[in-house]
């Protein structure tokens, strides 16, 4: 394991600026997507669905505070064969994600664009600007296959695979700064690419995503409710 000594100028003029650039580009992306994305109009039916799912879960968790008759009456209301809400909801026609729908398609396109394009553009620029030297070393050993990917522009055959170029440092930063965005921008930020699923657990009318199939969620809750044994805990 060779121990290279890097020029401290790399630290000052490459390492830190890449971090700063990534961070600010992320914040910029968040604000631009706020401007471009229109507010999701949630259907009332989807709100009701979300609420019923939440209620089924609450019934399972806190049902032990209710006497047996009340609990069974509520379980009956939700799970009964023909008349229960969950059973009826499972029989609704499935509405999967519909690529033919123009409004949904533009939403998807916009989302993908917002995420992919800046990443590619800035990654390419960094690769072009900061090329020809290694920037940092990853602390774990890598195989030779990674050399081609991580050491663009540095064609040394005997160089250890752990030394990576600036482009790979950029990508590392981008994925690593995700949690910092949560700290800085609050939990609802568009710079965080992993927030594709809406949070179903919030109280105030959060709805089931119409693109995800709600029937699977209903079926899950129905089965869970059927299985539960009521024990009056007080």
């Amino acid at each position, binding site marked *: 394991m060779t121990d290279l000594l890097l020029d401290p100028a790399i630290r000052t003029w490459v390492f830190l600026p890449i971090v700063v650039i990534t961070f600010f580009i992320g914040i910029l992306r968040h604000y631009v997507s706020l401007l471009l994305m229109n507010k999701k109009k949630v259907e009332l039916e989807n709100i009701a669905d979300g609420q019923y799912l939440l209620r089924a879960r609450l019934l399972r968790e806190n049902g032990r505070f*209710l*006497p047996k008759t009340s609990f069974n009456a509520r379980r009956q209301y939700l799970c009964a064969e023909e008349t229960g809400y969950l059973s009826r909801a499972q029989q609704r026609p499935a509405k999967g994600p519909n690529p033919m729908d123009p409004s949904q398609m533009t939403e998807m396109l916009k989302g993908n664009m917002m995420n992919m394009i800046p990443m590619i553009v800035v990654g390419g620029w960094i690769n072009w600007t900061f090329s020809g030297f290694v920037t940092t070393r990853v602390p774990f050993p890598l195989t030779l296959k990674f050399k081609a990917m991580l050491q663009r522009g540095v064609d040394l055959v005997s160089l250890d695979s752990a030394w990576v170029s600036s482009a790979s440092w950029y990508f590392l930063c981008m994925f690593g700064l995700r949690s910092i965005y949560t700290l800085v921008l609050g939990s609802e930020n568009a710079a965080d690419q992993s927030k594709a699923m809406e949070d179903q657990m919030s109280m105030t009318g959060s709805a089931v995503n119409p693109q995800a199939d709600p029937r699977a969620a209903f079926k899950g809750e129905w089965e869970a409710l059927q299985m539960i044994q009521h024990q009056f805990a007080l």
Partner: protein
Amino acid sequence: MVETDWTQVSYDEGRQTLKKWRECGVRRSEEVVEIWEHVISRSPSSLGDEEWAVVEQVCIASLDSARVDLAQECIDLLHNQFPHSNRVLKLKAMQLEATEHYQKALEIYERLVEEDPNNNSYRKRKVAVLLAQGKRLDAIRAINDYLKIFLNDPEAWLQLSELFLLENDVPKAVHCLEECVLIQPLNSMYFRRLADLRYTQGGADNVELARAYYERALKINPTDLRSQYGILLSNNQIAASTKNATEKKRAGLAAVDAIDNLVNRYQKISPKSNPESDGILNCLEAMKVTIGSK
């Protein structure tokens, strides 16, 4: 009870009190108006971020204490700051409600509901209009419709249970409170109220349930005196009505326990803060003797 003179408090204290009341949803409207007029309104801009929330709070409080002039001032302030706001429109509709123009208020609420169907506060105000007009049954029906969509709103369930109690329909009120318990199982107030209702319903099962709920309320909130009384009364009732001897004994012991706890609590209170505490202590001692002898 110490009566604070709200006209003499400091600015900071007034601001903290208003904030506390705003977050807890307390209805002390005349005091809010006093604090505003004598303390805060001298320099409202130094409230900073809270300024508009405080103005809204004062507006509702002034409507509640029939101070139409102050309400109009607050609405004007808010309108100048937020000209196209739905929230300000809601306040204007509330002002119409307060001056008994119920039809116009209802029209505004319908329009707001159409514009923003996901915001549940406009639907709740529509129910409030019905309540103000005294149409309780219509209000019950309206809350039921509201609850079909927004299922997990403990405030609405609580209001519904109050309405059922006004109609003397205790089982339905119990059902509504149970919903509240499902949503917020760590709230001792719901348990206490449920226990009160179950005790009112009477019958052996209900009184046992009431006792269980009182115990739970006491566990969550050990300083709650009413649940202690509730335990005493329900145990007394069970001891009197049950045929099983061991049950009787256990209930009797639990009742005596409850009295001991109560006596401890009352002994710590000085007669100045609660002038009846001596009388209560004597009463409790007497009860202990009668229950202990059974």
